[in-house]
């Protein structure tokens, strides 16, 4: 059984995000990028499933310019067997990405599509769900536990009220939540080997996908700065302060 894992190159989560002075977006030049953390979790889960013998091949896929190759190399170092680079430089909205992934999934005949629940750059939380809808297959989002058994998967989901366990038929889409696993350290020998693994390049045109713009970003603004806190010495003072703010 084959699993397809999508990996996105995003501004690293340690980086202090700066909004461009004209509000047209955030500064990405000269800023550290890395694999979306939820995609690392997806890669880790795929590798664990392979180690358990539940799947036999892992294919990593990304959409992006030349620099996204680094992200694919990271996926290969995690343990992907090969990678597909959809070389498209410009802005890619979730629906376009989903169409491309759906096309790859079909072409590859993969039974599992594992993606992050969201990418930490746009926080859209849409791509996985859209892939499932486009292919009319099952989806299990916000996974915190995954068990694959034959042509079924049992997935524990993190929902507002707690945990929900569902069973889905394969092929299915799974999106990963933070607590699914803790991604391993990449070992230097694996990174070295990853340099030699194959990456196939393709494009939206090859995949028969027409990119569309469903929405337009009109403005980006930094969150309002938090005003300084006050130090309270006693619980009484704290209660009084909360009351004064109308919070108690």
């Amino acid at each position, binding site marked *: 059984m084959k699993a397809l894992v999508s990996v996105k190159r995003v501004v690293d989560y340690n980086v*202090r995000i700066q909004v461009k002075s004209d509000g047209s977006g955030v500064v990405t030049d*000269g800023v550290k990028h890395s694999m979306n953390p939820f995609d690392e979790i997806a890669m880790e889960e795929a590798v664990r499933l392979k180690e358990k013998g539940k799947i036999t091949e892992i294919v990593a896929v990304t959409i992006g310019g030349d620099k996204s190759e680094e992200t694919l190399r990271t996926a290969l170092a995690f343990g992907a067997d090969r990678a597909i680079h959809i070389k498209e430089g410009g802005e890619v909205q979730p629906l376009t990405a989903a169409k491309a992934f759906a096309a790859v999934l079909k072409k590859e005949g993969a039974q599992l599509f594992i993606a992050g629940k969201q990418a930490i750059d746009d926080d859209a939380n849409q791509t996985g769900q859209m892939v499932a809808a486009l292919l009319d297959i099952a989806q299990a989002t916000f996974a915190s536990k995954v068990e694959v058994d034959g042509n079924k998967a049992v997935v524990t989901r993190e929902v507002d009220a707690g945990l929900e366990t569902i069973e889905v038929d394969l092929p299915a889409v799974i999106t990963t939540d933070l607590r699914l696993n803790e991604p391993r350290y990449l070992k230097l020998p694996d990174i070295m080997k990853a340099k030699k693994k194959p990456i196939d390049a393709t494009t939206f045109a090859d995949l028969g996908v027409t990119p569309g713009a469903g929405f337009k970003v009109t403005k980006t603004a930094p969150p309002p700065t938090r005003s300084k806190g006050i130090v309270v010495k006693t619980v009484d003072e704290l209660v009084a302060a909360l009351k004064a703010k109308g919070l108690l």
Partner: protein
Amino acid sequence: MSVERDVMEYDVVVVGAGPAGLAAACRLKQKAAEAGKELNVCVVEKGSEVGAHILSGAVFEPRALNELFPDWKARGAPLNVPVAGDEIYFFRSPEAAFKMPNVFVPKTMHNEGNYVISLGNLCRWLAKQAEDLGVEIYPGFAAQHAIVEDGIVKGVQIGDMGINREGEHKDDFAPGMELRAKYTLFAEGCRGHLGKQLIAQYQLDKDADPQHYAIGIKEIWTVPPEQHKPGLVVHGAGWPLNLLGTDALGGSFLYHFENSQVVVGLIVDLSYTNPYLSPFDEFQRFKHHPVIRKHLEGGTRVSYGARAIVKGGLNSLPKLAFPGGVLIGDDAGMLNFAKIKGSHTAMKSGMLAAEAVAEAIFAGDEGGKVLNGYADKFKASWLHDELYRSRNFGVFLHKFGSLIGGAINYVEQNWFGGKFPFTVHDLKPDYKTLKLASESQKIEYPKPDGKLSFDKLSSVFLSSTNHEEDQPVHLQLKDPSIPIGKNLPLYAEPAQRYCPAGVYEVVGDEGAKPSEKRFQINAQNCVHCKTCDIKDPAQNINWVAPEGGGGPNYANM
């Protein structure tokens, strides 16, 4: 605890992806291509990516780059802002300054033909060139030990990953690999932690003056576009440091870069004498000087960081080669302090070492020798000539202060072309210069205003530094009793103040007895500047590389 380690063999391993290491890697591959031969070259870098740990001014002199890639413009090197104006100030007080008339600016401080750059971005670009030439670069991996067998350096061992605070293996323990090579080039920058050990082990500094250092603290600001003058370069000396005395020296810089960014920094010599001095707080108050504030007002601070600078120059240069390895760049101490420029000298020294290594290997050398060819090439190069001309500069300042030392330097540089017929020496290492706290005056620093000046913690936050929490503390105390037992009573434990990242704290109530106080090391905050390793009066702090990838995440520094 013995563990199985993977081993990889290369012709050359380079430790550190700064300008020195990357220029060396590129040059090795160019030499191989010229000779129609193969050379396997690998570079390891402790930062999470190339450039993440690079902090510089920087006004960049393209001389070495012109030699390495004459077509750098066509290759898109990030040299986009030519220096458009040079100003030098002597700051006399918090309000007053004297602008040096252009005719008195020493030749070494003229910057026509230079560029205002981000050295981090230049390194990112150099890394791309190196990879295109076939160099393997591995960011996120720190070299933890030199592998020395029978007195010969055989390569480096990468730090282990997944060890907890107590030193035990965690579930995800991954032993560090051994990277073995015919020759290993150490390019860790100022106060490299392997370089330091190798200098001691092979007594490379036996015939050299003690090395001298400074700490440079830098911020990047975004300013209103109408206030931005791309290419303007402002240097200064004096307030808040000494202009006439010699007990707290240093200089400042402010450069207008691209994208409405202005960089500003203060460089404080680590030969300062008052243990109450805090380079961080000096820098914060410095920004309030009218000459400086007018560039920053109305802007926002976007980044912060600090890094030590090696400034002993030629007099302090250790021997460059030892069996199986060489020191290049600031790991050796190639910086020209008269210009505060070390990137072009770092690159040039890397290129010279690369040429020596390539020639030796192509002549059948199996590695492990003392590469005297590198030292010979160095002596015959413009780099040696440049450092020779500047060899007295730092010493003049140490002995005579910024104003008079600066004047003597003017005479030497402009009338004697840097070739005074004598050399002066400065034999006191920086860790020995502190006076006792009891003989020193406490310094009351003004409270930060939150607009121009800030506190340490919010500053460190802007360095985006990050370390895995559960790992051994990478700031090792040789004797854990010294901070509270000795440094506190004698010097009011200066680590609390010289560390620009708030790593060291003495906790306990103000009036408490020393026995009730505790020395706390917040290792996660460390920005890898190396100041503690240099300035601790007891030489008790040993900086070692933390788990790879940890440390600052500088952008555009």
